C-alpha cells in the first residue's frame, strides 16, 4: 500500500497529465520583484522567554528558577546584545542574526487577552480584534489584492489549510505524500465524478497542480527521504515547501503550522523537551533557507505564536498559558540583526496579572509591515480589508530592507 517506487512511476505520469491540461493556471506571480513570504504558526503558545531569554535582567535567574539557562557553559544562551540572547538550540538562527537576516520582537501578542489556545489562535489567524468576529484568515484576505488568488499562489503546508489561509480566495495545500499515486486514467474518471461538486472538483484540480510542481521541484523527496521522517518532523516540510516556493511557477506565499509548544510539564531549560522542539524548528528554518536558494534574498519568513507563557515555573516543571511571546522575522529581504523590545523587567509588578510578560507590540503591526513593505500591498486594502480595526496597530517601520 505504501510502495515508493509505484509512487515515483505513476507520480510522473500524473504530472504529465496535469501539465498538458492546466498550464495556464500558473499565471499568478504578480508580486513586485518576485518576492516570497512564509508565515510559521507556532501553535500551542511558545515560551518567548525560553526562546529569547533576557539573561541580562537582574531578576532572570531567580524568577525563572529551574527554567533559567545557566550563565556559562553547556546550555548557556547565545548572547545577542548583552541583555537578550537566543536559546542554545537556535544556532542556525544565530547565524542568520550574524548575517543581519533575523529581526526579533519581544513582548509580542495579538489583541486577545484571555488564555484559551483556541480563541487566541482564532485571533492570531483571523487578524480580528476578538475571537470569531471574522470567519476567514488575514492572509487569505491579502491574496486578492496581491493578485495571488488564482489558486496556486498560496500554499498551506498541511493537508487542509489552517484558518490563517482559509477563506474565499482559493489556495493549495501540500505535504509529502504517503499514498501510492493514482493513475491518470483513474483521475480523469474521478474528475468526471466531481463535475457537479465544486468543493471536491476544485480541491482535486488544485491538489494535482501543486503535486506536479512538487514533483518537479523536489525529486529527491520522492525517493522517500521525507516520507520516512517521523510524525511531527519539521525539516522535510520546510525543505519541500522551500523548493516549491523557489520554483519558477510555484506559489509565492506559504504557511507552516508547527505544533508542540504547549509546555505545561517538564519544559526543560538548556536541554529537554522545549530545547528539542526549538532545535527542530531551527533546523527546519535552515532547511527552508537552503531550499529557497537564490530566492532567499527575496524572502521574508515570520514566525509567531498565539500567546506566551507564565514567567515563573508552574508546579510541574513547566509554564502555563500567558500573554506575550516573541516573533521572529527572517530572510534575505529582512533588515535583521536587531531586537525590538520595550522591556519592563521581570518583577511581578511589571508582569500582567503578576504572572505574564506584558504585551507591548501587537503582532498585527508586524504582519502589516511585511505585507506593505515586502509584498507591496496597497494601504487601503491592508487597512480596510486585511486587518480591519487595526488602526491602533500601525505597521512597524524598518523591518524590510529597502
Amino acid at each position, binding site marked *: *500500500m*505504501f510502495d515508493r517506487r509505484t509512487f515515483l512511476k505513476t507520480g510522473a505520469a500524473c504530472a504529465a497529465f496535469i501539465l498538458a491540461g492546466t498550464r495556464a493556471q500558473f499565471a499568478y506571480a504578480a508580486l513586485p520583484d518576485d518576492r516570497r513570504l512564509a508565515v510559521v504558526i507556532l*501553535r*500551542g503558545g511558545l515560551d518567548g522567554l525560553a526562546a529569547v531569554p533576557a539573561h541580562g535582567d537582574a531578576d532572570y535567574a531567580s524568577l525563572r528558577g529551574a527554567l533559567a539557562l545557566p550563565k556559562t557553559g553547556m546550555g548557556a544562551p547565545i548572547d545577542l546584545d548583552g541583555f537578550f540572547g537566543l536559546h542554545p538550540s537556535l544556532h542556525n538562527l544565530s547565524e542568520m542574526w550574524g548575517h543581519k537576516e533575523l529581526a526579533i520582537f519581544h513582548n509580542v501578542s495579538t489583541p486577545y487577552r*484571555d*488564555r*484559551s*489556545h*483556541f*480563541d487566541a489562535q482564532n485571533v492570531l489567524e483571523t487578524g480580528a480584534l476578538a*475571537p470569531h468576529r471574522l470567519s476567514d484568515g488575514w492572509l487569505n484576505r491579502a491574496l486578492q489584492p496581491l493578485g495571488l488568488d488564482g489558486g496556486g499562489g498560496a500554499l*498551506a503546508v*498541511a*493537508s*487542509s*489549510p489552517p484558518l490563517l489561509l*482559509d477563506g474565499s480566495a482559493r*489556495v*493549495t*495545500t*501540500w505535504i509529502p*505524500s*504517503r*499514498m*501510492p*499515486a*493514482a493513475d491518470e*486514467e*483513474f*483521475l480523469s*474518471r*474521478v474528475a*468526471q*465524478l*466531481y*463535475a*457537479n*461538486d465544486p*468543493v*471536491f472538483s*476544485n*480541491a*482535486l*484540480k*488544485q*491538489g*494535482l497542480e*501543486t*503535486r506536479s510542481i512538487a514533483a518537479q521541484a523536489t525529486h529527491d523527496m520522492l525517493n522517500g527521504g521525507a516520507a520516512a521522517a517521523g510524525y511531527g518532523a519539521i525539516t522535510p516540510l520546510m525543505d519541500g515547501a522551500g523548493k516549491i516556493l523557489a520554483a519558477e511557477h510555484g506559489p509565492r506565499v506559504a504557511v507552516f503550522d508547527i*505544533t508542540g509548544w*504547549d509546555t*505545561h*510539564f517538564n519544559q526543560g531549560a538548556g536541554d529537554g523537551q522545549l530545547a528539542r522542539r526549538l532545535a527542530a524548528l531551527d533546523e527546519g528554518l535552515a532547511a527552508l533557507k537552503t531550499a529557497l536558494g537564490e530566492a532567499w534574498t527575496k524572502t521574508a519568513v515570520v514566525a509567531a505564536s498565539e500567546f506566551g507563557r507564565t514567567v515563573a515555573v*508552574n*508546579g*510541574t516543571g*513547566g509554564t*502555563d*498559558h500567558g500573554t506575550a511571546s516573541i516573533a521572529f522575522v527572517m530572510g534575505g529581504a529582512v533588515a535583521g540583526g536587531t531586537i525590538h523590545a520595550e522591556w519592563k523587567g521581570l518583577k511581578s509588578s511589571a508582569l500582567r*496579572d503578576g504572572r505574564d510578560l506584558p504585551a507591548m507590540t501587537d503582532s498585527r503591526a508586524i504582519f502589516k509591515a511585511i505585507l506593505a513593505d515586502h509584498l507591496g500591498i496597497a494601504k487601503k486594502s491592508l487597512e480596510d480589508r486585511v486587518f480591519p480595526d487595526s488602526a491602533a496597530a500601525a505597521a512597524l517601520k524598518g523591518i524590510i530592507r529597502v
Partner: protein
Amino acid sequence: MTLEGALAANRFGLGAKPGEIEAASTNPKGWLAQQLRQDDSGPRFAKLESTQTLVVDLVRQQQARRAKDQEAIKAFAMETRQVFLKEMAARFLNGFETAQPFRERLVWFWSNHFAVSIAKPQSSRFVGAFEREAIRPHVTGSFADMLLAVEHHPAMQLYLDNAQSIGPDSMAGRLSGKGLNENLGREILELHTLGVDGGYAQGDVIALARILTGWSIDRGARPIARMMNAVAGGASDGAFRFYPARHEPGSKTLLGRNYPEGYQGGVQALTDLAHHPATARHVAVKLATHFIADDPPAESIKRIERAFLESRGDLMKVSEALVDEPAAWRLLPGKVRSPVDYVTAALRIAGGDRLSMLDEKSIVPVIQSARAMGEMPFSAPSPKGWPDSASAWTGSDAVLERVECANAAAEKLGSQSDPVTLADEALGPLLRPETRTLIQRAASPVQGLALLFASPEFQRR
C-alpha cells in the same frame, strides 16, 4: 430502500453494511432507537486490559527509569505501542462490524469531545481503556457520570497534567516547593463543560485547578501507606487515587459557589458543571454540528439543549432528541466524512469476511491510511479534539490523498462482488445516477469500487 433508511445508516451510523439500508428503511427512527437500548460490543473488547492492570505497569516503568535500565525502558515503550495497536484493532474492528453503528458513532463523538492523545506519550497506554471504561458505559447514561469518569481516568490525568499538580499550601507543596498546573482546570471549563463563552474567568480556572489538586493516579503503595492515605480522607479505585497530602487546603470558590476542601469538593464541582446551562448549550452545539450540519439550524440546537436541561443531562434523552430532529432528515449538503469515518465506511461496505482477521499487525495500514488523510484516533493535535467541519478534510492535498486512498483501498479489497450492487447497498437513494453510470462503465470491478469510494456522495454522510 428509502432515503430515510440511507440517512439512518450513513448520517447517524458509520456507513451502511450490505443489507443495512434495507433493514433500516422500514422504521429508520426505530432502527436507531433500538441501538441505544443496550451495548453489544462487549465481546470485541473482552481481551483488552483494564485500566487497573495498565496502571500497575506504570510502576514497572518508574522502576526502570529510576534504575536507568535503558533496555527495560525501551521494552516498555515497545509494549506500549503494542497495547495501543491492540486497542486500535479492536476499536476499528468493532466499527467495521457493529450492528449498532449509531451507538458507536456516539462513542466516537464523546471520545473526541473529551479528547486524550498519544501526543502525550505518558497517556498512550491508557487511551483505549479510557474510551472503553470512561466513555462507552455512559453514552446513553448521564453526562455527569461520564464527566466524572473522564476526569478521574489516568489517561486524562496524564494528558492534561493534573496527575502532578500539587496544592502550593498542601503538605506536599510546602515540603517540595512544587505547585499548581492549570491545564486540566482550564480545559474542563473551556472544552469539556461550559465552553469558552460559558461565563468563567481566570480566577475560576485557578479555583478548579486547586479543587482538583490531589487527583492523580494510583501508583501503588505498601498497605500501610495506603491505609494512612485512606485515614487522611484519600480515595482510590486502583487506577485513580486522591492524595490528601497534595490537596490544597481550604474551601474554594468556583463560579461564585463554595466547595469544601477534600475529594468530595471536586466531585461536587464537576457535578455542578455537568448540570450548568452553559454546558447544555455547549454540548447541544457540538452534537448538532456533528450529526446535522457544519452550521446547524438554531432551532435544532435549542431543542437538543432543552432535552439536555430537562433531563438533567440524560444522554439517552439527548440522543433521542437528536434522532427526532427534523433537520437531520432533510437532505442538506451532507457532512464530509472524517478520514476515520471514511475508512470505516469503506470497510463496512466492502470489507467482507476478511475483517475478522484484523489484528495489531494488519491494523497498521488502516491507521496509516486515515493518518495520511489527516486524522488518526486518539492523536488529535490538541485537547480540543479533531475538527468537525468539511473544511478540515477538503484541502486540496487532503482530497487528493482521499482519492488515492480510494484507489489503494479498492485494489486491496478487490472485487468479490459487483461494484454497482455495492454502490446501491452503500448509498441507496443517495447514489446519484451519474455516479452509478460511471461505476457501470468502469474499466474493471476494482476501478468501479475505487470510483464508489471516491464519489462525493460516499465522501459525505
